């Protein structure tokens, strides 16, 4: 996992995930102190299934299965030593740890091309809506002779993973309502996809934004705008909820 965080820029946020998890556990330390400790043998069953998964991963199934086995083994150890109450309390940090697992290759390969084409379509729509002439051929945008290829690296997976993780953390910190946490996670998906389309449209409209530092800065600003949108969505949901309750 460490190697993937180091080499894959889609996954480099993996370095931050354990830090955030440790911080959440520390924040919840009083709650953990009051939990009853009731060790159960069911933990051994989880540990055994984790070992089985690790064995299958070692046979060549892949890095994802091996990393998942690591998480299942942690859940097994918690269950073994603390019991079900401890596992329930640790469920959120463990779920958050899913964001540090390597990308599942079969899902990634299946979603890459549709996401590339979706980003191309959204970018073409934005440019057309702004009155800028654009011809789209598959994942290629032709903006007045300036051709932009929406390649694999522009598929938006990076925005999706990063914003999904942030939505979960924001939901945890800002709201105790489970539905709000789920709503924020679901809202992060269209926000990230639209933001990626906007990024591609910007690169198509202004050739100077297509590469190098301006491209990185534009990508950073658009992500900050995504964050602001997510906070706005939370406030809108809250207002609607208060209105509904009253």
């Amino acid at each position, binding site marked *: 996992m460490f190697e993937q965080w180091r080499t894959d*820029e*889609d*996954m*480099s*946020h993996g*370095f*931050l995930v354990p830090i*955030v998890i440790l911080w959440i556990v520390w924040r919840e330390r009083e709650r953990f102190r009051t939990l009853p400790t009731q060790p159960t043998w069911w933990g051994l069953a989880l540990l055994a299934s984790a070992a089985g998964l690790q064995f299958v991963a070692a*046979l*060549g*199934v*892949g890095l994802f299965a091996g990393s998942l086995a690591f998480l299942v083994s942690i859940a097994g150890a918690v269950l073994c030593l603390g019991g079900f109450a401890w596992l329930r309390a640790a469920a959120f940090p463990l779920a958050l740890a899913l964001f540090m697992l390597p990308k599942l*290759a*079969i899902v990634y*390969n*299946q979603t*890459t*091309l549709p996401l*590339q*084409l979706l980003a191309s379509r959204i970018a073409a729509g934005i440019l057309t809506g702004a009155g800028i002439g654009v011809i789209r*051929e*598959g*994942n*290629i945008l032709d903006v007045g002779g300036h*051709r932009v*290829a929406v*390649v*694999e*690296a*522009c598929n938006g997976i*990076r*925005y999706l*993973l*990063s*914003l999904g*993780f*942030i939505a979960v*953390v*924001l939901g945890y*910190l*800002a709201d105790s309502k489970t539905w709000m946490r789920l709503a924020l996670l679901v809202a992060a998906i269209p926000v990230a996809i639209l933001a990626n389309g906007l*990024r591609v449209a910007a*690169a198509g409209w202004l050739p100077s934004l*297509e*590469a*190098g530092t301006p*491209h*990185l800065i534009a*990508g*950073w600003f658009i*992500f*900050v705008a995504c*964050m602001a949108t997510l*906070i706005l969505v939370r406030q809108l949901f809250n207002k609607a909820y208060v209105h509904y309750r009253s």
Partner: protein
Amino acid sequence: MNKLTVLLFWAMFSFCLKAQITLGSTVDTFGVLAGSTVTNSGPTVVLGNVGVSPGTAITGFAAIAPGGPGVATGVIHSADAFAGTAQTQLTAAYNAAAGLATTSTVAGDLGGLTFAPGVYTSTSTLGLTGTVTLNAGGNPNAQFIFQIASALTTAVGSTVVLTNGAQASNVYWQVGSSATLGTSSFFSGNILAFSSISLGTNATLQGRALARNGAVTLLSNTINTPAGQSGPPPPLVTPAPSSLILVSTALVGIFIYQGRKKILKPFRTC
């Protein structure tokens, strides 16, 4: 005399070890090249030229009658001189790859294996289930050449992973008969097939599908043609900021948002 023989033998051995395959400057530009036909169904994207020679039929692409859902960012060459030159260069590269001295033999299935740069020979068919890793050991010029006497077949969802600087343009699959890539598989390298090449639905090829005599069949695929040794320089890498930067920024933003009352308090009391 004996010393001279040893010296000559060592020189030949060293040459074999350092053998490098190059595609020609014309065939380099093709993502897909067939001998008889190129047939596409679904929204295939080929980043590069598509061509056929000596055959003439290319179907399923928007840029050639009767049209179709496929897109090629390059030019469609149907039995023209350019495609003919590409086929000649393909034959030369195929023969060069087939003639290299072997580093090691392989058999059966490559799934779960990791290969260092070298020439690997299979005397029969070769398969791939799961993941095979090609590790260049930090040398971006390292070549991986697979000589396969018969067919190459990859399973559904199988993957060729390139690590430590390995480049798709430096991977060659010399296939004695036909190559078939499984549905949703992710394959890397230049496929130089004696007969035909078939890509399963949604399979992705980071490389080239080059068939000497037979057909190339595509089904909603992505073929990303890498820049070859004699081809155009690779495009500028234009990544979005890494997720580490994005998430760090967002976490700082969340903490500011959460602590906004405390932060703004001194200003309000004034």
